[in-house]
């Protein structure tokens, strides 16, 4: 009798285990079905290309992009010895240096003045964020006109003040600045919108107690606003840096990498090497270098971004 009960419970147990496993299996299939479309597309258009780019960077290729001769690290060695690539890296970093701090400072200024509760403030917010709706192609065309040597607005202004006209896009020492100005103008919309969001989500009571203490406007700005905004600022800085490294459209329309490679930023350099010179191996090596730079930036963002949770 007791023996029978024991076997029965054992059978029950096995049955129970089986059902549990079946259930788990079913849950797994269900989860995968919901995720499958994303996983397939990420595999085909993201993970595979990344591995393939690493692979190609160790090869010479033919004009169709098929690898022909394995050459180890030669692509990288040649790149770092090439004066054109050195120039490209230098221009890219200079460009980041010119655009990122100015974009942040200008956007922060706009966000602060647009955070006041005034009549008609919505109009100004819309104007300041309008850059987000203007594509790189359109923005570049606008500035192509502004930089035009004879009929361009900037040179007309210089002319009215009897100053010497500037060859904005054809003078190697001005082209990088011209592209930077265009880029800052383009990026302000997005950065402004994020910073304004950060300002609006801040606690009001801190300001109220500061008001009670009789703190001045700039004191509050320096001691409350900026520190409280630091996580948002940090996010915006890293996103702007990453975007700057990925710049392409402005260069393609305004300067095509010239004059004398002064604006041949890394993405444009990859594009030219791969789709004009058909050097897919060397272009892949450059793509890997770009990937590593952006990877480092993203890791910094995640690592430091985690920390913000503690002091919020």
């Amino acid at each position, binding site marked *: 009798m007791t023996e029978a009960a024991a076997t029965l419970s054992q059978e029950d147990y096995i049955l129970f285990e089986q059902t549990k496993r079946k259930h788990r299996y079913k849950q797994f299939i269900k989860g995968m079905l919901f995720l499958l479309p994303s996983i397939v597309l990420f595999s085909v258009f993201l993970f595979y290309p990344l591995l393939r780019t690493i692979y190609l960077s160790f090869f010479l290729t033919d004009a169709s992009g098929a690898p022909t001769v394995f050459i180890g690290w030669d692509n990288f060695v040649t790149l770092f010895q090439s004066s054109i690539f050195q120039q490209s890296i230098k221009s890219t970093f200079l460009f980041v240096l010119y655009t990122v701090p100015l974009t942040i400072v200008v956007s922060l200024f706009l966000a602060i003045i647009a955070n006041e*509760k005034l009549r008609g403030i919505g109009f*100004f917010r819309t104007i*300041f964020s309008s850059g987000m*709706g203007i594509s790189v192609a359109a923005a570049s065309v606008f500035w192509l006109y502004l930089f035009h040597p004879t009929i361009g607005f900037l040179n007309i202004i210089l002319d009215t003040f009897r100053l010497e006209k500037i060859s904005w896009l054809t003078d190697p020492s001005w082209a990088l600045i011209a592209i930077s100005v265009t880029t800052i103008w383009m990026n302000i919309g997005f950065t402004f919108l994020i910073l304004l969001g950060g300002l609006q989500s801040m606690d009001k009571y801190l300001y109220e107690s500061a008001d009670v203490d009789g703190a001045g406007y700039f004191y509050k700005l320096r001691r409350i606003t900026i520190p409280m905004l630091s996580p948002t600022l940090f996010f915006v800085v890293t996103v702007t840096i990453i975007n700057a490294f990925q710049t392409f459209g402005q260069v393609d329309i305004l300067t095509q990498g010239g004059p004398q490679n002064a604006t041949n930023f890394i*993405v444009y350099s990859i594009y030219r090497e791969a789709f004009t010179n058909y050097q897919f191996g060397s272009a892949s090596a450059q793509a890997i270098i770009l990937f590593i730079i952006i990877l480092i930036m993203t890791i910094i963002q995640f690592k430091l971004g985690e920390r913000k949770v503690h002091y919020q």
Partner: protein
Amino acid sequence: MRIPLGRKIVTYFLLSTAALLVFMPTLMAVVMSFMTNQDIMTGSFPSAFSLDNYRRAFEQFSLMHYVINSLFVSIIIMIGQLVLSSLAAYAFVFLEFKGRDFLFYLFIATMMVPFEASIIPNFHTIRDLGWIDQYTGLTVPFFAMAFGTFLLRQNFKQIPKELREASQIAGMGEVKFYLTVVLPVAKTSLITLGVYGFLTSWNMYLWPLLATTNDSVRTVQIGLRQLQSQEQMNDWGMIMSGAVIVIIPTLILLFLGQKKLQRGLTEGALK
């Protein structure tokens, strides 16, 4: 608290000056698109207002064809992103299965791979699939989207667990729960993500440049590039009218959805 008058005046002055500076390039382009080329070349104030530039852009340059291509491509990408992101977000929030956390980290990892660093193999893939000059080549690579998945995951998490339990007791399947409960509740986030997806797709530049070799599916951004490189230095009125057409749909979307977009992006970015 009332703002003192002096500060009000200073703020309005700063706001107006900044607005004028920020909007100047756009404003000039709009004005130029209605000017005659003679006025533009001599740098004088507009002497006449005409729609001639727009007429020529549409007639000689088949601008409408590019606009329709862009609309089609952007809407397809938008829908693809909404479907794939919401499905993935649903799995991450409501389903429990082995390997879920691993997959979640894999999704995070995708944000570290810049598209620009993988264009070479992607171009070859599209070419080998015969997707060059096809709508598929312009749209399918962008359907899967980690940012959209996170944004919706954040939103789905706010749906009470009781709702799901009740639906399970009532014998409602996953698909029905996803379609009839989760999606309607997350409507606002879906709209935000949709607007964002449309904006970014409409403004895409590098990929459409590579994935099109003729006018059949070419988007309006690349059309504008053609226009300015063909017509450079002489027909500024027509170029500007093309540029204005390019920015109108996105500016309208932005003006309508600015508040929502701002809230959505800030949430997605900072949570």
